C-alpha cells in the first residue's frame, strides 16, 4: 500500500535505477550472514555425499537352471569396443579368415530346442553369421542374423542394430545371409533365394586384426521371470535360461577379395562347392563359457548350432544382466540434499516476508524483478557449488565402497560422468530457483516447501519405489512433474535390441536426460515469471 505509489512517482528517478550488481551483492550478503542457511547448504552437500556410504550392496549371484543361486558368480562383465559393459555369450562355429573375404550361408531354421520347459523361442534369440576379431568376449564383431521375433538384422560392436528388409514376424526361413570384409569395413547382405542380394548395412570396425574368426553362431537371452517388483542393487532378476538352435546349409567361406564388385540386387557369387572344402576345419567355441546344451553338429552339408546368452550391451534391468551397478546408485543422497536445498531456498525468500524485511529490500532496490533475479542467481549458484561438491564426492566414495564389497560398477563414458555430476548439481540449483520463486508466489514457507517436495520427491517415490502404480502411470508422472529431472542421473541407456523391463523402478526414465531436466527448468522459469509479476503487483 505504502510502497506502490512511492515507487512509481519518486523512486523511478534515474539515480534510484541501481545497477544489478549492488542488488546481487546485497542478496549474497544476506545469504552468507544467516548462519542457518550456510549450515543448510553445507548439510545439503554432506547429505548428498554421505548417503552413498550407506550402500552396503554386495554382488548377489546368478540364478542357474533349476533355481539354484551361485553366489558371487557373474559379478563382472566383459567390456565392449565402445567401453560399455556387454554380454558376449554364444556358441560360435568358426574358422580363421585372413584379410578380405566373405562368408555366406543358407539359414534353414531358428528354433528353441525340444525339452526346454516353459521358455519358448525368445524374441531376441539370434542365429546367423558373424565375423569377430577373436573369440575373446567383448572383442569387436559384425553379424547378420535372424531373430526369434524381430526379423533379419545386422548388429555390430554390441550397441549397433540395423533392421533388415524382412518384416518382423514374416515367415522367412530358409533365408540367405552373407558378410563380406573389405579392410575394416564389414557389409551384411540378405537374400531370399541366394541370387538376389540386398545390403543391410556396413560396419566399420576400426583396428580389426588381419586374421579374424568367421562363422555361424546361435544364442538366446533368458526368458524373463520377474521376481518381485523392486530391483535391489546387486541382485539380478530371476531368469529362465533359454537356448536357440540355428541350422545352416550351403555354407561357403571365401578368403581373398571378392571377384568383382557385388552388385546389389542382381549378382550372385558362388553359393555351392566351397562348403565341402571348408567343412572339416570348423571348430566350435562357447564364447563366454560353456553352458549345458550348447554345441554344434555337422552332418553332410548341414550345420546346426545351439547356444545361449546374448551378444548385446549389458542392461541392468534385463533378465540376463551380469549384476553390475549403475554409477547413479551412489547419488541416492541427492534426495536428502534436495530437502535441505528446498528449505534454504524457500526461506531465503519467505524470511523476507516473515521478518518484514522485504519492505526494506524493496525501498533500497525498487526494481523488484531485479531483486528476485538476484536472489535466484545467488541461491542457484551457491546450490550448484554445493551440489557439485556433494556429487563429486559421492560418486568416487560410493563406487569405492561398492567395489570393496565385490560389486561391479557399469563403466560409463567421460561425458556421461560429467553429465552425472554437473546434472545433479544443476538439478539441485534449478530446484533452489524454483524454491525462491514459489516462496515469492505463495509467501508461506511451509506451503512452498510442501508443493516442491510433493512434485519432486513424491513422483519419484511413487514411480520408482512404490509398486502401487502401473508402469504407464509411473512413466506419465515422470514426464509431467518436475521429478522428470532425475532422468539426468540415468547413465545406462535403453537399448531396443535388449528385452528388459525399462521402468522407473529399474532406473529408466521415460524422458531423455536433458529433456527431463528441461521439464524442471520449465517449471522453475514459469514460477519465476509468475513471482516477478505477482511481486510487482502486490504490496510487499
Amino acid at each position, binding site marked *: 500500500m505504502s510502497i506502490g505509489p512511492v515507487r512509481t512517482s519518486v523512486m523511478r528517478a534515474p539515480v534510484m535505477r541501481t545497477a544489478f550488481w549492488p542488488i546481487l551483492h546485497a542478496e549474497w550478503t544476506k545469504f552468507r550472514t544467516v548462519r542457518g542457511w550456510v549450515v543448510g547448504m553445507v548439510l545439503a552437500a554432506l547429505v548428498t555425499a554421505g548417503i552413498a556410504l550407506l550402500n552396503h550392496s554386495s554382488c548377489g549371484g546368478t540364478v542357474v537352471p533349476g533355481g539354484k543361486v551361485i553366489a558371487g558368480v557373474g559379478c563382472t562383465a566383459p567390456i565392449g569396443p565402445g567401453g560399455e559393459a556387454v554380454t558376449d555369450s554364444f556358441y560360435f562355429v568358426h574358422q580363421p579368415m585372413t584379410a578380405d573375404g566373405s562368408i555366406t550361408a543358407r539359414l534353414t531354421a531358428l528354433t528353441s530346442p525340444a525339452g526346454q520347459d516353459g521358455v519358448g523361442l525368445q524374441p531376441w534369440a539370434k542365429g546367423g553369421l558373424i565375423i569377430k576379431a577373436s573369440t575373446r568376449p567383448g572383442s569387436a564383431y559384425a553379424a547378420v542374423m535372424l531373430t526369434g521375433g524381430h526379423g533379419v538384422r545386422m548388429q555390430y560392436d554390441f550397441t549397433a542394430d540395423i533392421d533388415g528388409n524382412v518384416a518382423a514376424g514374416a515367415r522367412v526361413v530358409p533365408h540367405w545371409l552373407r558378410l563380406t570384409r573389405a579392410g575394416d569395413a564389414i557389409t551384411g547382405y540378405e537374400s531370399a533365394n541366394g541370387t538376389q542380394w540386398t545390403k543391410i548395412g556396413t560396419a566399420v570396425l576400426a583396428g580389426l586384426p588381419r586374421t579374424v574368426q568367421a562363422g555361424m553362431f546361435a544364442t538366446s537371452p533368458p526368458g524373463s521371470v520377474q521376481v518381485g517388483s523392486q530391483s535391489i542393487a546387486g541382485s539380478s532378476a530371476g531368469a529362465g535360461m533359454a537356448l536357440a538352435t540355428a541350422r545352416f546349409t550351403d555354407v561357403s567361406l571365401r578368403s581373398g577379395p571378392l571377384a568383382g564388385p557385388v552388385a546389389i540386387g542382381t549378382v550372385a557369387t558362388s553359393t555351392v562347392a566351397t562348403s565341402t572344402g571348408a567343412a572339416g576345419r570348423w571348430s566350435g567355441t562357447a564364447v563366454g563359457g560353456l553352458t549345458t546344451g550348447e554345441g554344434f553338429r555337422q552332418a553332410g552339408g548341414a550345420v546346426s548350432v545351439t547356444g545361449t546368452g546374448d551378444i548385446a550391451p549389458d542392461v541392468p534391468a534385463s533378465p540376463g544382466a551380469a549384476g553390475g551397478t549403475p554409477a547413479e546408485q551412489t547419488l541416492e543422497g541427492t534426495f536428502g540434499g534436495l*530437502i*535441505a536445498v528446498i528449505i534454504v531456498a524457500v526461506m531465503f525468500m519467505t524470511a523476507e516476508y516473515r521478518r518484514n524485511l522485504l519492505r526494506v529490500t524493496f525501498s533500497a532496490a525498487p526494481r523488484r524483478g531485479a531483486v528476485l533475479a538476484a536472489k535466484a542467481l545467488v541461491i542457484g549458484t551457491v546450490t550448484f557449488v554445493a551440489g557439485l561438491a556433494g556429487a563429486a564426492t559421492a560418486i568416487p566414495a560410493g563406487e569405492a565402497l561398492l567395489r570393496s564389497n565385490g560389486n561391479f560398477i557399469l563403466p560409463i563414458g567421460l561425458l556421461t560422468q560429467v553429465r552425472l555430476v554437473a546434472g545433479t548439481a544443476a538439478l539441485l540449483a534449478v530446484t533452489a530457483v524454483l524454491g525462491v520463486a514459489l516462496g515469492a508466489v505463495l509467501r508461506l*514457507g511451509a506451503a512452498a516447501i510442501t508443493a516442491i517436495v510433493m512434485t519432486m520427491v513424491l513422483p519419484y517415490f511413487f514411480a520408482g519405489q512404490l509398486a502401487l502404480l502401473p508402469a504407464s502411470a509411473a512413466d506419465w508422472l515422470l514426464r509431467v512433474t518436475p521429478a522428470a529431472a532425475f532422468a539426468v542421473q540415468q547413465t545406462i541407456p535403453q537399448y531396443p535390441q535388449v528385452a528388459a523391463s525399462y521402468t522407473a523402478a529399474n532406473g529408466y526414465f521415460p524422458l531423455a536426460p536433458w529433456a527431463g531436466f528441461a521439464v524442471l527448468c520449465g517449471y522453475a522459469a514459469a514460477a519465476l515469471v509468475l513471482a516477478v509479476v505477482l511481486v510487482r503487483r502486490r504490496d510487499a
Partner: protein
Amino acid sequence: MRSGPGNSARLSPAHIGPAHIGPAHIGPAHIGPAHIGPARVGAGVLHAEWTKLRTVPSTAWLLVGIVGLTAVAGALADAAAKCPASGCGLDPARVSLTGTYLGQAVVAILAVVAISDEYGTGMIRTTLAAVPRRGAMLAAKAANVSAVVLLAGAAAVLASWLAGWLILPGHGFTAAAGYASLSLTDGPMLRAVAGTVLYLALVGLLSLGIATAVREPAAAIGSVLGLLYVVPIIAAVVGSPSWHRHLEQFAPMTAGLAIQDTTGLAAAPISPWAGLGVLAGWAAAGLLAGSVALTRRDA
C-alpha cells in the same frame, strides 16, 4: 482471561508489548490455583487453542486440502490400477488409500502452521503469558490438531475407500481373483481404513512436535517431509536386504502405513499394529522433544 488469547489473535505483533501483557489482566496471578481449578485451566487452554485454530483462515483450506487431495489421488490410483486374472500382487486397500501419501503432507502443514505461525507473529509470547504452563499449551494444541485431523482424515479415508469400493472390483480386484471384498465389514479392510485415520493424526502430532522444537515453519515442514518420504527412498539403496528391512520397520511412513496391509501380511517387514505403534513412538518422541525445547527455551 479465557477470551484473552482469542482477542489478541487479532492484534498485530507491534501491539504486543510487555506492557500489555504484564500487569492487570493476564498476569500469572490470575491463573493461580487459588482462583481456578486445574480442570478449568485445562478447558480454558483447550478452548483458547481451538479458537486460534478455528479462526486462522488457512485451517479450513488445509482441511479441504486433506480430504480433496487424499480422495482424488486415491481415485486416480484406483482408475490406473489393473489387475489381470493372473494376479498383480497389488493390495486393494493400499491402492484405494494411495492418497494418504499426499494427504499426510497437508496434515503436516496444518500441524506445523498451528505452532510456528505463533512464533512468526510473536503471538507465542502472548499465549505463554496467558498459559504459563507450557506443556499444557502444547497438549491443548495437540488435542485440537488431533481432533481436526481425525475428522478430516475420516472424511478423506472414507471417500477414498468409497472410490476403491466402486472402482476396484471392475478392475480385476474380485473375489474370483482371490481378493477379499473391499467391504468395511471385512476385518482387515476396516483395520486399514480406521488405522489410516489414526495414521494421519499421528503424522499431525509428529509434525507438531517437530515444529515446536524447530520453530521455523520452513525447516519444520522440510524435516517432517524428509523424514516421511526420503528415508524410504534411501532405505531402498542400502543394498543389504536385512538393513532394508530394518529401515522399513523403523521409518515412520513405511512402518505406519503397514496398517493398510490386507494382503501379503506374512512377508511384510512389520505387522500392521506394530507398525502404527512405531509411528506413535515417533509422534511421542517428537512431542517430547517439542515440549522439552518449549519449556527450556525463551519463547
